[in-house]
């Protein structure tokens, strides 16, 4: 593949060293002054490095459809799907917004509930021990598998989808926040006690700052599953949003539309994930 070879070309001058060592990984101070790769080449390498996965996906998809001579009813090619989206971008944007709104609402509810329960378990040893059983249970049970049941119990509406998303987000947030609250720097707890800090001060000035990065990491873990769970719930229950549109398109054999929904939801998921991981990086720079 050409992108990889060009990426290697920019790396090559640093890798080879004229020493007798059989391994080329040992850094020595004796290397001759190496030529700096030009800025343009460096930038090209970065761009290639960032874009080859996407290009690979598109080329593989295109080749699969074209070389397999698949009819559009089975699998449309990338250009077909993109023109379908370009044909009616407004409705896709609206559906994506609906899904995103449900996901963010559920995420906030779930994160608040999870953080609250983690706080309770920080203050009470008994609560911590009692919660640990159901917490373990929830850790190995994927909530989305029981979304039909939740739909039956809470009704076929948007509130249920928010509840499902909240449940998905709730458990990782609780587990990560509880471990973050407990993971204060060594000795800091003793110092606070010696200096006569009250329990509440210890919580807000010591435990919370150390838990915050963990909480964001847990959001990064749950955001993708939350999007997937919300889509799945819309798909199972048929209310509104991308998941609903997908099942309708699928069941009426409008394959291009179904694939377009898939592509839009993947883009939405990647965007939300990037936002949360960006926040994560900011928080870990600030608090760690």
């Amino acid at each position, binding site marked *: 593949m050409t992108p990889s070879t060009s990426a290697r070309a920019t790396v090559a001058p640093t890798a080879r060293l004229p020493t007798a060592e059989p391994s080329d*990984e040992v850094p020595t101070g004796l290397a001759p002054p190496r030529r700096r790769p030009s800025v343009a080449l460096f930038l090209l390498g970065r761009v290639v490095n960032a874009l080859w996965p996407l290009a690979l996906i598109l080329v593989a998809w295109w080749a699969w459809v074209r070389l397999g001579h698949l009819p559009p009813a089975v699998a449309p090619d990338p250009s077909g799907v993109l023109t379908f989206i370009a044909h009616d971008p407004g409705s896709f944007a609206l559906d994506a917004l609906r899904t995103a709104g449900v996901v963010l609402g559920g995420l906030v509810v779930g994160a608040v509930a999870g953080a609250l329960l983690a706080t309770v378990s920080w203050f009470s040893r008994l609560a911590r021990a009692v919660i640990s*059983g*159901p917490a373990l249970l929830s850790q190995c049970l994927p909530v989305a598998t029981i979304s039909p049941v939740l739909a039956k119990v809470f009704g076929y509406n948007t509130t249920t989808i928010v509840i499902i998303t909240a449940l998905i987000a709730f458990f990782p947030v609780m587990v990560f926040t509880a471990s973050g609250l407990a993971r204060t720097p060594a000795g800091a707890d003793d110092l606070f006690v010696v200096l006569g800090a009250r329990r509440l001060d210890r919580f807000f000035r010591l435990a919370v700052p150390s838990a915050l990065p963990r909480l964001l990491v847990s959001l990064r873990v749950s955001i993708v599953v939350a999007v997937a769970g919300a889509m799945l719930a819309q798909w199972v229950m048929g209310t509104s949003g991308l998941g609903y549109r997908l099942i309708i398109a699928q069941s009426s054999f409008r394959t291009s539309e179904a694939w377009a929904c*898939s592509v839009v*939801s993947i883009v939405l998921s990647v965007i939300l994930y990037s936002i949360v991981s960006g926040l994560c990086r900011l928080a870990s720079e600030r608090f760690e």
Partner: protein
Amino acid sequence: MTGPALAVLGVVLLLAAWQAVAALRWFGTTVCAPTVVVRVFADASSRRVLLDGAGATMLEAVEGFGWALLAAVVVGVLATLLPFLRSGLDQLGTIESAIPFVAIAPILLALFSRDTVPTAMAATTAFFPLYLALVSGLAAVSPAVADLCAALGAARRDTLLRARIPAALPVLTTGMKTAIPLAVLGGVIGEWLGSSNGIGPIMLVAMRNYRMPMMWAAVVVTVVIALLLYGGCAALEWVTARRFG
């Protein structure tokens, strides 16, 4: 009271809350009490149906998990041996993991038959945590060991085989613990796409026909499947942590 006893108490409290919610009819007749669910399992014919479904789902999840593990090993070793591919492969993996379950449905339906879709779906959902664990595990070899290998002139292949892979195993088994619930999830969702066997269709059919006890029994079976597979992975983690940790 000791920790485990309190944890069990927590689960008991959960069951009690479930029983109370059912008895108080907060959600009408949609919530069946645990005692009603037990009666479903007591009935021989419905027990047969549920156990058959559980077996099928478990097989799909484990099979898909196996494929995902194989793919993760191939791609992970590739990313470790050819470092210039690493960032691109990571990115591919992130995109793969960000695909919502139902969004991949049209693709899988075009690629596989309806009865193999659950396995394929389980493999897709379980892949990324396994890949992530493997790559970070292969990088987790301690600097001292890496230096020693380099100083003794070990070939890249030998370093991989004798230093990196043993260091990766504990991390990989931890990754397996996070990936196995996703494999179960993938299996069940794959079944909803039109497969006829497994616990997923049982749950869906019970939901549509308003057979609430059956539906809740299916939920219990799903929990037990997830617990069993998770427990297996946790045991494996414990063993590798003792041997290689």
